[in-house]
Each structure stands twice: as C-alpha cells, then as structure tokens.
C-alpha cells in the first residue's frame, strides 16, 4: 500500500478548493486513503492509499482529480488518447522495436509533452509517480519501468533494441564514466537492485535515439545526459517498458493524464513492433484500451441490500469519475471506465463504486437473520481439557512464537559439544528458504526450546517452576500432501532443585487418567535426556510423546542451573488414540 508525499496546496489546487484537514480526512475515504502525516512546515503531507488496483490515485494530480469529481467537479476529458481504429496523429514521433526483444522485454509505451516548463511540484509528482507505479504496480520494475528524457537532446525515431551487454557502453546517471551493461549491473546501485530482472538474458534491453544517443538501459538506469530531467525542462519524452502491454498502457495513461492536468500538452507517439501484440503491430500511445461493461441493477441491488434505480447508480458512478448510462431495457447500465482506470473486472466492482459514490453513511446496518449453530473444533475442546488438567496440577500456561533460531531449536539441544543432536530423535524442525534473520529461521517442532528459554530467563522467579504450552508445531510427514503436517502439541516442564523423572511421570499418568487414555512407556535413547531417564510414551504401538530428565549439557547450553524434566506430547495422536 503506497504512501505518497505531496504539497497540500498542490492537492487543494487539483481539488479546486482548500479545506480543513478533518474534512480532507473524511473526503479521502472516497479514495480509500488516509492522512499518514499532516502537512509539515514546508506544506508537505503524506497520504496512504489502500487500493492496489487504483494506481491512478498515487499522485497529487490523480488523487486531486478523483476528489474534485467526487465533490461534484466536472469529469475530465482527454483528447490525446488513441482508441481501437481511431489513432491520433504521432507526427514524426516513433519508437521502433527490435525483433530480439520479443522474449526479453517485449513492450514499450511512450508519449511526449510540451507547452509548459516543469515546476518543482510537478517534477516531484512525476518522479513519485514513476517510483510508485514501477515499484508497487510494476513489481519493482519487473513488469513496468519508466524513463523521462529531454526531447531537445534527441532525434526520433527512438530505437528500442536488444544489445550485447559487454559491447554496449554508456555513462549512466549517477556516475561519471562509461560502463558496459554487465558492469552497471555489478557496480551501479540501481544495477545491483534492478539488474537481476534482465541479467539472465544474452541480449539486454537498450534505448537510443535515431543517432545512437543513449536514452537508457531499461529497466535499470537512464543515461547521464538525455536521461537527466530538471525543473524548468519543457519538452519531455516519457517511455515505459515492460512485460504486460495492458499494465504498461494503463501506467502510460495515468502519467499522461497527470501531466495534462498539470497543464502540459500531451503528444502521441507511435510504437512499431516487428511482432504481433494484442493491439496489432503499431500502437499509438497514450492508448485507451478499456472496454465498456454492462452491469445489472438487480445484481448491484443484491449487493447493496436494497433496490437501486438507474438514475441513482449513474449519479453515484459519476462522482467516482465513471461515465454510465441507463440501457434501453432499464434493467442494466452501460459503464465506461475512464482511461486511467483498469479495475473493473466484474460488475461487483461497479457495485462498490456505486456504494462509495452514494456514500457509505447512506446505508444503515441490518442484523443478519439466518440461524446458525456455533461450536469449537474437537481439537480445541480437547486442548482445553488438557489445559484445565495441567492448570489443576499447578502448571502455568505459557504462549510462544512459532518461529525461532537454529541455535535454540537445534544447537542448544545438543547433549555433547559436537555430533548430531537429532540422532535418536524423530523430527528435525522445518527450515525457511527466505528468513529475515537467523532468529526466525525455523518453524518449531516442539515447545521445548521456548520452555527452556523461559527457564533460562526466569531464575529470579521463586521455584518450583511448572510451565506448559498447548500450541501448534510442524512436522515432516511424507504422507501429507505438503510433506509437512501441523500438529497440536503439549509440552510441560518442571524445574526445581528436586525435579525428577518420578514426579513428571506422575503428572503424565494423572493427565492420561483424566483424558481417559491408556498409555505405556518404552526406554528411549533420545540424547536430549540423561541416559536411562527418558521414555517414549505410546498408545498401543503409536509413539505419542516423550518424557524424561533433560541432560545437564542441554541445561548448561540454555544457561539453566536447576534440574529440569519435561514431557512432550502429540495431542492429535492422543485424541485419536
């Protein structure tokens, strides 16, 4: 969910009037936005926008446009869009695409602007749009990357090529010398960040003008010359490259409409492909690809929970910047989304805009009347019986995270300084492929390491300590579709100067008595315990847990200085046993 920065006065300029922050706050609900930070001394405020399908709102111009229309302002009209079979005239502005790009980064959209120098607010807004569109909407430039250039320094047609990354060199923005593309990927900060998107291709995307003047190495970095845009620049060339034509055209439309709203004149550019695209081989941008949608009034009414007339639906949609008309039957409305939106997938999306356009406060809550029976899961109820019994025995319930470190889950459970701690033990913990840190690298296979950690930090609490946790653990299980099974588990631990096998076995015994289950024990060589003082707990032939006195080396590893006994049980196996 992007947070955008903007000059509050610039936003008010687009809205058409100023207002107190409290009014802006509630007006922003129409855009699913909220004020994240109030305006500072420079008049800069931060607004968070929650709808990831409305990238048109992620700029001062776009957000201001929506709020202006919502307040009754006129719908914007943009005449620079080409449509199906109705292309604008690009003049000499052409981009020619290299056939080798078809399987690298096949699409490019572009337009030019003129007529007004970029001011500080517009430049900032443009840079922010670029950043938010490419990061949040364009998967960190993977599907959309955008560049802006000074038209005065370049000659059409622009060439979008696939080039050899070693033979091709230029001076990238932010550096003072020429590097080849591989060097940029390895050395330039943007290369390190975005290079991996194209690093595996033998030939990489490259943008030059007709004379070979370098524009950029998309999606990585602009050139230091043509690609450096500053306040006061008037004639600009904007291009977006990517992997999905529709997303690209949407982003292109958003930027073009924003610049048009800021007072710039948008000039079309023709992109010429040597291969087929969903829109043919020549696409003149900006391009309006949105198809009209037919929405049934009855379906909208069903979602609203009340009947709605075509008139009120059309009025509500109008406030959302959407053109709609009643169809001849009176049962449906024809809806035409604006060029900068592509979030109508289904008529339910229209219904939501009707709700917001009419105002959430116009709908009164109604209690559902359906009768249903509530209940807890069987495992939950069984777990509560277990918890009640343990508490009755004087145990204190603990609750812990499910992720932890290899140090706690594995190394500290080693009974000897070297060797495999899991020899003789059934289960290792599940490891994550992309941990944030070593502290949260494994999914626990028992509460035991957490209970031992609790012991190690709780020596100040009066003894005896009797603690337990009922919670979930993850275990490898080849029979499971996931290869890993989630188990409801119980682990209880007693720590005291005279804690011993006999006492913990007595607790185990009384627990099973109240659970109405018969169990037996078998000697275990589980190395986490003192040899000869560990037992497997079985129901029939199924091992359901382990009980024993922890090995003093394990206690030392955890920094515990009193004897500790534990019992670790699989509650699902006991419930079904």
């Amino acid at each position: 969910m992007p947070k955008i920065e903007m000059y509050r006065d610039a936003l008010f300029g687009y809205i058409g009037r100023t207002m107190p922050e409290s009014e802006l706050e509630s007006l922003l609900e129409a855009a699913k936005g909220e004020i994240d930070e109030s305006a500072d001394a420079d008049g800069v405020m931060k607004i968070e926008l929650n709808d990831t399908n409305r990238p048109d709102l992620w700029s001062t111009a776009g957000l201001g446009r929506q709020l202006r229309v919502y307040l009754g302002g006129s719908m914007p009209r943009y005449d620079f869009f080409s449509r199906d079979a109705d292309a604008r005239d690009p003049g000499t502005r052409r981009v020619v695409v290299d056939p080798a790009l078809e399987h690298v980064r096949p699409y490019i959209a572009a337009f030019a602007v003129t007529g007004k120098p970029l001011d500080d607010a517009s430049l900032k807004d443009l840079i922010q749009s670029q950043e938010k569109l490419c990061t949040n909407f364009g998967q960190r430039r993977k599907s959309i990357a955008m560049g802006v250039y000074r038209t005065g320094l370049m000659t059409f047609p622009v060439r979008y090529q696939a080039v050899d990354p070693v033979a091709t060199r230029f001076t990238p923005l932010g550096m003072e010398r020429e590097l080849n593309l591989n060097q940029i990927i390895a050395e330039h900060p943007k290369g390190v960040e975005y290079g991996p998107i194209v690093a595996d291709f033998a030939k990489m995307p490259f943008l030059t003008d007709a004379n070979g003047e370098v524009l950029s190495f998309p999606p990585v970095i602009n050139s230091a010359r043509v690609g450096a845009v500053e306040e006061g620049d008037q004639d600009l060339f904007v291009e977006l490259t990517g992997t999905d034509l529709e997303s690209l055209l949407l982003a292109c439309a958003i930027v073009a409409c924003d610049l048009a709203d800021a007072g710039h004149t948008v000039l079309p550019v023709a992109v010429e492909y040597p291969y087929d695209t969903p829109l043919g081989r020549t696409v003149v941008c900006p391009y309006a690809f949105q198809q009209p949608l037919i929405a049934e009034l009855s379906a909208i009414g069903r979602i609203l929970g009340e009947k709605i007339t075509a008139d009120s639906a059309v009025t509500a949609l109008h406030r959302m910047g959407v053109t709609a008309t009643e169809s001849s039957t009176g049962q449906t409305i024809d809806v035409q989304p604006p060029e900068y939106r592509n979030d109508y997938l289904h008529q339910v999306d229209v219904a939501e805009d009707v709700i917001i356009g009419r105002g959430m406060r116009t709908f009164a809550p109604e209690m559902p009347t359906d009768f249903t029976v509530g209940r807890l899961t069987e495992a939950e109820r069984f777990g509560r019986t277990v918890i009640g019994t343990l508490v009755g025995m004087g145990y204190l319930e603990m609750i812990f995270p499910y992720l932890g470190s290899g140090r706690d889950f594995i190394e500290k459970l080693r009974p000897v300084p070297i060797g495999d701690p899991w020899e003789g033990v059934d289960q290792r913990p599940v490891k994550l492929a992309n941990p944030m840190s070593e502290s949260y690298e494994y999914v626990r296979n028992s509460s035991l390491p957490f209970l031992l950690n609790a012991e190690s930090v709780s020596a100040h609490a009066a003894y005896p300590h009797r603690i337990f946790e009922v919670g979930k653990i993850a275990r490898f299980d080849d029979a499971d579709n996931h290869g890993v099974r989630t188990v409801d588990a119980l682990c209880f631990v007693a720590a005291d100067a005279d804690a011993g096998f006999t006492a913990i076995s007595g607790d185990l015994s009384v627990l099973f008595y109240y659970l109405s289950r018969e169990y037996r024990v078998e000697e275990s060589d589980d190395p986490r315990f003192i040899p000869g003082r560990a037992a497997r707990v079985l129901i029939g032939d199924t091992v359901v847990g382990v009980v024993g006195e922890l090995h003093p080396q394990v206690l030392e590893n955890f920094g515990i200085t009193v004897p500790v006994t534990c019992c670790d049980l699989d509650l699902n196996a006991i419930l079904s046993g």
Partner: protein
Amino acid sequence: MKTDVDLKGLHPLEVRLLLEFSAGEQITASALSERLGYKVGQANQAVSWLEAKGLLVEAERTTAVGFELTELGAEYARTGTPEERIIALLRDRGPLRIPDITAALGLENKDVGSAYGSLGKAGALEMDGEKRIAVKDPDAATDVALIRTLLDRAESADGRLLHEVDLSDDERRVMESVSRKRGAASAPFRVIERETVTYLLTEDAAPVAGALAKAGITGQEIGQLTPEMIRDGSWRSATFRAYNINVPPAQSIIGRRNPYSAYLDEVKDKLVSLGFEQFDGSLVETEFWNSDALFMPQFHSARDIHDVYQLEAPTHAREIEEPYLSQVASAHENGWTTGSRGWRYGFDRDFTKRLILRSQGTAVSARTLRSAKVPGRYFGMLRCFRPDDVDATHLSDFYQTEGIVLGEDVNLKTLLGLLEMFAVEVAGATDVKYVPGYFPFTEPSIEVHIKHPVLGWFELGGSGIFRPEVTEPQGVSVPVLAWGLGIDRMALMKLGLDDLRELFTPDIQNVRRRRVG
C-alpha cells in the same frame, strides 16, 4: 511501660523467658537450657527477639576455656596412652630395647624415645648397660595417672568437654602439655574458647510479663494442630497460640491460564455464542490456498518473496485438488464462468503448488468454502507469518481472527450489521464508523473503525463480500461475507501492555503476576 509490645506477637520462646526470669537475674544460654530446656538456637532466637523489643539487654561478656577430647584422645582413653602402654609392655615382657618396644606396640621410634625421656626423668623407667629399658618405679609416673583421669573424665563429660574452671592446678599443668589450640589432631585435647554473654531483663519486661500473666498466656500454647492431637484428644486440654495475623504472607505459587491465550479463548467463546463454528488449518500452506484461491493475481505485490515465507524443503505440494485448481486458474486467466474478465495472464500451475507459511487467515476461509453449510458462519483464530523485522508493533508470527458468513441474506447492510455486532459484543465499542477499504478478494470492502472507551478511535478490522471469482470456483453460489478482526490491540489493552512482544513473554514471573484488566 512499653505500650507497643503486641502480646500476640510474642513467640512462645519469648513468653516463657519473660515469665521465668525476674529482674536482676542473670540470663545465659546455659541458664535457659537448664530452666527452660532451650537448645542453643532457641536461646539465641529468644534473646535476640527480646533484645530487639527492648525487653532484654546485654550485661556482660566473658570467655570460658574448655578442653575437648579429640579423636586421638578418645583412642588413648580406650587403648591407653603411649606411656601407659610402654609401662604395661615392660611389666609383662621385662626389659626391652627401644626398637623392640616400637615394633611390639606399633609406635614410632621417636614417640617411644620421647616417652622414655619423660618417664625416665620422673624415675619411672631406667635403661641398663645393654640399652634395654626396664620399669623402675611405676608409681613415680604421676603425670601418666593424671592424664588417665583427665581422659576418663572427658570421655564421659557432656560434649566430651572439660571446663578449665573445673580443673585442679596439677590438672591444668598437665592439660597444657596434652592440648593444642590449632592442629590438635596430634594431641588428645583441643583447646576451646567459648564466649558467654549474660543478659538482664530491662525495666520494661516486668509489666509485659504481668500483662502476659493477666492474659493467661503461658508460652505453652499450641502452634500447629497435629493429627495426633486430634486422634488422641489432647487438643481438649490444650490452648492454641494466637497468631499475628498481620504478618505479610509469602504469595503461593499456583498454576494458571496464560492471560493472553485466555483472552483469545474468550474471543473464541464469544464468537461461538454468536453462532460461529470454528475452523483450523495447516501452518504450511500452498500459494494456491494462501492467495490464488483468493483471486490475488500471481504478480500481486503482496505475493513478493519479501512478503511470504517459503520452505527450504520440501518446496512444493504434490498436488492441488481438482476441479478447484482448474477453476481457480481459469478465474485468473479469463474469469471462468463468473462473469469476470479475469486478470488476463497465464496462471502458473507450478508456482501455485509452492509451499509457504500461511500469511493470512483468509487462506483457511478459502479452504472452508467448499464444505461450508448455507446458511453458515465460521471463524478461525489462526497463527500467520510475515517476514517483518520484529519490534513493538510487528511479530514474526501473530494471530489473525478471520471468518466467513454464507447466506442468501448476505449483503452490504447485513455486513454492516455483523460488523456492528462485533464492535459492540467483541470489542465493547461505544461508536462505530464504516469506511471503504481494499482487500484483493472482496468487493465491496469495508473497514470498521470503532470508538473504544479507553483507546479512542481505531481500526477494528476489515470485511467485505467475497468476489465471485473467489466463491464460484469453490462451488459456492450464495454471497459470502469475509471478515477479519485485529484483536492484538485489544489484547494489549486488556493486559495493560504496549508491546506486542510482551504477549509472548518468556518471563515466568511476568506470567505469574500479569492480571487481566
């Protein structure tokens, strides 16, 4: 008179002392032992407590010397001193040379030598021309006889201790030669110096004793009632000591629920009371159920490698059940038969099998759809995982409370009604506000903000009506409301905490002491 002495606060050891002794009498440990039968420890306790109360003062401090029989001394007492044994041997066997005596008695030459030295000097032994030692006059060995009487007396004395004051001058002289202060293992006696402190009652004691007598307190009252006393009836003639009930007790150690999980159970019970049935699911999920089935496109920003934990091994589920896989895939690609245009991209059937840790409870809502009853209400209290840096407001794993409601009457207004019910019943809200929200799987989407009496306005949760692209591929044709509540904030408030990490504290004392507000 001292008025601040609480008669009930006096221990029986103090009471009996106060009643036994009168002003001016010397009170010592041995006097307490003799007259009241106090052991040393009891005497010390009684004296120090009374001293602290100002009823007793130290009068005099003297040091008494005593001689304690050592292990060696005890052996001498039993089997004889070397001198005694030499005389007895020579009487029995006639004159012998020193090495022969040494061998016969198992002694060392130097010991025999020194014994001969002293006994010869006293005139008890003599040596002939062949260096043989013979008895001359056994009666001349007077010191040997004195040592014998000391050994015998010490052996039967209390604590095998002879007091210096009880010895004659001769005995003191001899004792000096056979006792050591330190390193006494080689001597039959060890010198012991004992300090004797004498105490006197203060003038405040008599009134207290008088008050005790008047109150009928004797110090013989019973402390603990024993099973024997109940069985044999001796309690009938006993009086029970009144306890000082104002003494602050040490708190008992008890077993108890963890306040955080108890709160979670309270929420579960509340939801059950509102007609919701609980569901649960696996911690390890597939991309399919975690996101694809929720119509989140596979390129959605929340599905990035930075937003979902993946497993090192195994990496993929074996299968995704049909026809759900194909129906969901079609919904993404072209909307399937839902009337949606879909996301219009090629659905990745390998990616969808990738194993991850559940990042949202809605994954289990999605799994529940195909077997859900209509009408039906469901909830889950589910641990979810996100790769966040852990701090006061982010955890590596946390609970989400999620659920669905299926029924013909599910619409925006009943959704608002349900949210209002949650706000009032679960969160204790005094005011409720609904604002448009965004979730990839619901349309419309609503956020519910509540005014809490303590916390003020905050976002309680999110809700919406599942998109048809979510429900129809699961075979559900009625509208389905999906909701989620952020209960951690309320849990923190209930427990008086402001750091999420505290909910999972490992500190036993914290969990013992924590109260629910």
